[in-house]
């Protein structure tokens, strides 16, 4: 009666910006069909400042934009709302390759700032031109140039390690060789990232062989604890409050697209042999329930105790490869449970240059 051949038509193409309304509506449809019990779950997940949908879509601490002007006391940003002026707190700090005074930032820099209070005018932290690359090293050129595969959803990036940062990075990443993982934070430039800070310690295993998570009996624990990290926006809007989830439903999401073989030949083949498809390496070291784009999760920064409802907006399967811990405040449980957008990470009180925070995620099932 109904044709299964039509099924792939509605797969979650996470790069498809034409259907965000479809994803955003899913939480409403879910609440309608599962009834009051799950509606109460969603209201529980909301932070108390409105309904879950509103809580999931608005930024209260974070502003993104391009710097038009900056002085010791005022920052002028070109945001989606146009030109906006923000007074700087006396204790305001800025990051541009390292901690600098706000006045040292440059016109034209892309910046993400955090307000001192929600919706308030005063800014307390500014990050300019900060970027991050996390994935598998697939090619090394000399001592300082790496080609890194961030997975099927994000593509490949060039990382340059300058002599001033080489020692610091090699202490935490002793194997800067094809097949091993890297996760570094630094300054964005045209076409490459200048690595400055190691975002974690290098896992001792090759990227394609992460440890296996312990088996789970009964139901998956809820909430689940682990590490929350951040990623660059890429094709996403810069001010998107969302997260790349490591365990999207393989039947309807990015895993299907990733399964397509890549054409390669000659020298490219040498590069491809080190590329790791995170969808083929198992669930990583934490077992998470399958979700879809549009699902809402409640995420808590255990270090700042700030909580937000965050929608799943993209595929974060590369996070499965990293079986590491965050030590921002105490030692987190092993495994990355959420790869947040920059805006969401800052909104939850994270410091971008630190790279992670200890997190607790409630999925509400």
């Amino acid at each position: 009666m109904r044709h299964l051949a039509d099924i792939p038509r509605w797969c979650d193409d996470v790069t498809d910006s034409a259907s965000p309304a479809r994803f955003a509506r899913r939480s409403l449809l879910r609440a309608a069909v599962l009834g009051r019990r799950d509606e109460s779950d969603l209201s529980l997940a909301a932070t108390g400042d409105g309904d879950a949908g509103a809580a999931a879509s608005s930024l209260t601490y974070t502003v993104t934009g391009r710097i038009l002007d900056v002085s010791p006391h005022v920052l002028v940003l070109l945001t989606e709302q146009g030109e906006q002026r923000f007074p700087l707190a006396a204790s305001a700090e800025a990051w541009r390759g390292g901690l600098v005074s706000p006045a040292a930032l440059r016109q034209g820099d892309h910046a993400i700032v955090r307000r001192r209070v929600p919706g308030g005018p005063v800014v307390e932290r500014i990050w300019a031109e900060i970027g991050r690359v996390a994935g598998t090293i697939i090619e090394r050129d000399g001592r300082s140039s790496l080609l890194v595969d961030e997975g099927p959803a994000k593509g490949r990036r060039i990382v340059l390690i300058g002599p001033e940062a080489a020692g610091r990075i090699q202490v935490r990443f002793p194997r800067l060789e094809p097949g091993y993982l890297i996760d570094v934070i630094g300054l964005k430039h045209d076409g490459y990232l200048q690595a400055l800070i190691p975002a974690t310690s290098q896992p001792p295993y090759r990227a394609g062989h992460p440890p296996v998570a312990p088996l789970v009996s009964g139901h998956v624990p809820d909430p689940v604890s682990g590490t929350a990290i951040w990623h660059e926006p890429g094709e996403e809007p810069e001010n998107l409050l969302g997260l790349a989830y490591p365990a999207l439903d393989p039947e309807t999401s990015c895993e299907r697209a990733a399964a397509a073989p890549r054409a390669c030949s000659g020298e490219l083949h040498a590069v491809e042999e080190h590329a790791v498809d995170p969808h083929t390496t198992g669930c990583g070291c934490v077992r998470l329930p399958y979700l879809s784009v549009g699902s809402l999760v409640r995420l808590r920064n255990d270090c700042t105790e700030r909580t937000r409802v965050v929608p799943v907006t993209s595929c974060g399967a590369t996070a499965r490869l990293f079986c590491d811990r965050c030590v921002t405040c105490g030692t987190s449980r092993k495994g990355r449970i959420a790869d947040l957008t920059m805006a969401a990470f800052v909104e939850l009180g994270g410091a971008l240059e630190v790279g992670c925070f200890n997190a607790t995620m409630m999925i509400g099932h």
Partner: protein
Amino acid sequence: MLTTIREVQIPLLAVMLLGACLAKAWRALRAHGDTARTDPAGLFPAHLQHPITILMFAAELGLGLGLIGTAVTVGHTRPGLPPTIVRTGTALFFFVAVGALNEMRQRRPDSGCGCFGELSGTPIGLRTIARPGLLCASAVATLGLPPLRMPSSPAEAELWLAVLAFELALIAFLSPELGEIMVRLGYSEPCELRRLPVGRTMTTLHASSQWRRYAGQISAAAPSDVWREGCWRFVVYPGSAGGRPVDIVFAVYLQSRRPAIRAAVLDADTDEVLGPTGTRESAVV
């Protein structure tokens, strides 16, 4: 009685060594390459890890077979040189293991011992360290033991079995792998983690009474959206009810037998939840 206790140690040690050897081989065959290090070889530099793993494998295999091969020496009543060498080697092997596990526990407290391959992922504790200590003591007890012989009476056989059972129970108590084995034997993957094809969900839905109830209102052959959250898969069809466009949402619980299926009708324009016939009444079935 003391001799009986000492005699039991030889087959016990051989089984432990060969079991560990087989478990490591099984992991190596399944992993097809460089896997995450959860054994003491991980303490060594990268280029030495593989040779040390092979050395451990060879040592366990050699000692296990050696214990069996030298246990019975026809025509002799006193222990010869080969059994003494093998048993001393076994004692040394477990003595070194105690030290290595203790070092591993201090340097990588979240790593397992890797003694029985992937079954040994539990972080090393005192019990894990006590096990090679016990086996070391067992190996020392076999030094100077004459060749093994069959029990001379039923009473001696019963004593032999009782000692074996007691020692197996003691080793089981000291082995975190036992819990892992029990979990694997009775493991059923939670529905949140179970990979289930969409086609099966659709087949289940189309055979349900909920589907028959709403089929008349559905206006498209294919769903407009399908997604999953944990144990539920949601399927949305466009439809028409009472002359207005509606979305009919089905939620299918992902289990093999008699899954729960729920349905709701929403106004496509206002997202208002409607009754089964398109009225503004309680809609959730």
